[in-house]
C-alpha cells in the first residue's frame, strides 16, 4: 500500500466566511477525515495558518506571503494510505475544501525511503 499526501489550496477562510461558516467547514472536515480513518487509511495531517507567514527566497530575501495567487495558497494537508492513485483521488473528492470555486486538492504520492528518492 502506498502513502499519499492530499494538499489543500484555498483562500484564507477567515477572510471569506463567518465564524459560523468556518465552524461548519471544520465539522465537515472532521467527518471527512473520520470517514477515511474508519477505513484505517488515515495517517495524519495539519492545517497551516495564514497569519504570520513568510517566504524565504534566493539570497535569503524574506517576503510576506506566500500570497501570490490567493487561491493557490496551501492551507493544509493530510496523509492517507491507498492502494492506487485513483483510491487517493476518491478520498480527495470528499474534501469540503472543494466546495469553494477555484480551490484544489493536489494528490501526490509520498516517496518511499528506498534510497532512490
Amino acid at each position, binding site marked *: 500500500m502506498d502513502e499519499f499526501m492530499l494538499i489543500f489550496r484555498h483562500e484564507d477562510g477567515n477572510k471569506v466566511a463567518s465564524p459560523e461558516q468556518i465552524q461548519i467547514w471544520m465539522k465537515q472536515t472532521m467527518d471527512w477525515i473520520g470517514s477515511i*480513518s474508519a477505513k*484505517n487509511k*488515515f495517517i495524519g495531517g495539519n492545517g497551516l495558518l495564514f497569519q504570520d507567514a513568510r517566504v524565504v527566497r534566493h539570497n535569503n530575501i524574506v517576503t510576506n506571503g506566500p500570497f501570490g495567487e490567493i487561491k493557490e495558497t496551501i492551507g493544509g494537508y493530510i496523509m492517507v494510505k491507498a492502494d492506487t492513485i485513483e483510491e487517493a483521488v476518491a478520498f480527495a473528492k470528499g474534501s469540503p475544501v472543494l466546495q469553494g470555486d477555484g480551490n484544489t486538492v493536489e494528490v501526490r504520492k509520498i516517496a518511499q525511503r528506498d534510497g532512490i528518492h
Partner: protein
Amino acid sequence: MGEPELIPHLFRTEYRKIVSVLGKLFGIGQIEIAEDICSDTFLTAAQSWGINGLPPNPTAWLYRVAKNKAINYLRRERLFESKISPALRKDHAHFQEEDIDLSLQNINDSQLQMMFAICHPSISPESQVGLSLRLLCGFGIEEIAEAFLTNRETIYKRLLRAREKLREEKISIELPPPKEIHKRLEMVIMTIYLLFNEGYYSLSQNSTLRKDFCLEAMRLCYMLVENPSTNEPAVNALLALMCFHASRFEARESKSGEPVLYDEQDTSLWNADLISRGAYFLHCASNGDEISTYHLEANIAYWSTQKTDSREKWETVLELYDRLLQIKYSPVAALNRTFALYKVVGAPLAIQEAEKLNLTHNPFYFSLLGELYTNIDKDKAVENFQKALVLLSSDFGKQVIQRKLEKLGHLS
C-alpha cells in the same frame, strides 16, 4: 460472614496487599516466594480457623501469620547463607525483620509500586493483565483461566514467563522517577483498561467473576487518582469511562443471566450514582490540554448514559468517533462511527459509507448493514443478517440476529 465465605473474601482483599508488601521487600526476583508465603498463610488460616474458630480480628491475624512466615523464611535463608554456603550468597536485599510493615500506608505504596513493576514495557500487555489479576487483584489461576476462556496450564505458563522476564530485566518495585511517570503511566492505564474490558466484554458465563474484574480495574485506577504523582487527566478519564460502563451492570443482564441488549435495557436499573461519579471524574479529566483516547471514549460512554435520541447527541458522538479513529483505529470504533453517522445523515448515505469499510470477516459489519438496510431493502437486510449469523460464535449473538430475521418475516 461465616468462616466458609470469609476466607475467599479475605483472600480477594488481603492477598494482594500482603504479596505487594512482601514482594517489594524481597524484590521482583523472589516474587514467587512472596506468593508462596501468602498462599501458605491462607492455608494455615483455613486449617486453624476450622479447628479453633474465627480469631477476633481475622485480617490482623493474617498479617501476623504472614509476617511470622516471612521472618522464618528469612532466618532460614540467613542461616543457609552464613553457615552452610557462604560461597553461594544470594544477592537479594538484606533487611531487618521489623521492615515487614503491613501498615495501610505501606500497603498502598507497595501496591502502587507493584503496579508500575508489573506494567513494564518489557513484558507483553497480555502478560501484564495476567500478572495484575494475580498479584494486584488476588485472582486464582483457575479464575483467570476461566475469564480468558483457556486452561490452567496456559495461564500458569504465561505468568511463569512474565515473572522470568521481570527477573531477567531486574525490574525494581518502585515508582519511576517523576520525569518518567507520565510515559510509564500510559502502560499502567492501558493494562487497567484491558483488565476492565476483559471483564466487561468477556464471553465467560461467570458473570460474578466478570463483574469482579471490572471492579478491580476501577479500584486500581482509583488508587492512581488518589496519589498526587499519578493523578493525571488520562487516569481520571479512564476512571470516568469505567464508571459510565459499570453503571449498566444490573441492566445488561437478565435475572436468568442472559445478556440484555442496550436498547432493551430497563433504564431504571442504571446506576445513577456511578453515572454522576463518572461525570465528576470526567470533569477532573478536563484539567489540562491533553485529550487522550480515554477522554474521547469516556465522552462517548457519557452519551451512552443518555438514552434520548437527540440530534445533538449523535452529532457529538459522530465527532468523537471521528477523532478517536484518527488516533486509534479499531474495527469496533469504525462500525460504531458508521452507526452514529446513520443517526445523523440517515440510512442511505450511511450504507454507502458502511460498504466501503469492507470488514467482511467481522459479524458486526454485516449486522450493522442488515440494520441499515432494514427499512430500505428487505432482501439485502436478510442477506446481511444471514452473513452475520455464519460468522457469529456466541449463542446470544445468534439469537439476536435470529430475532431480527423473524421480524423481517424471514424464518430460518
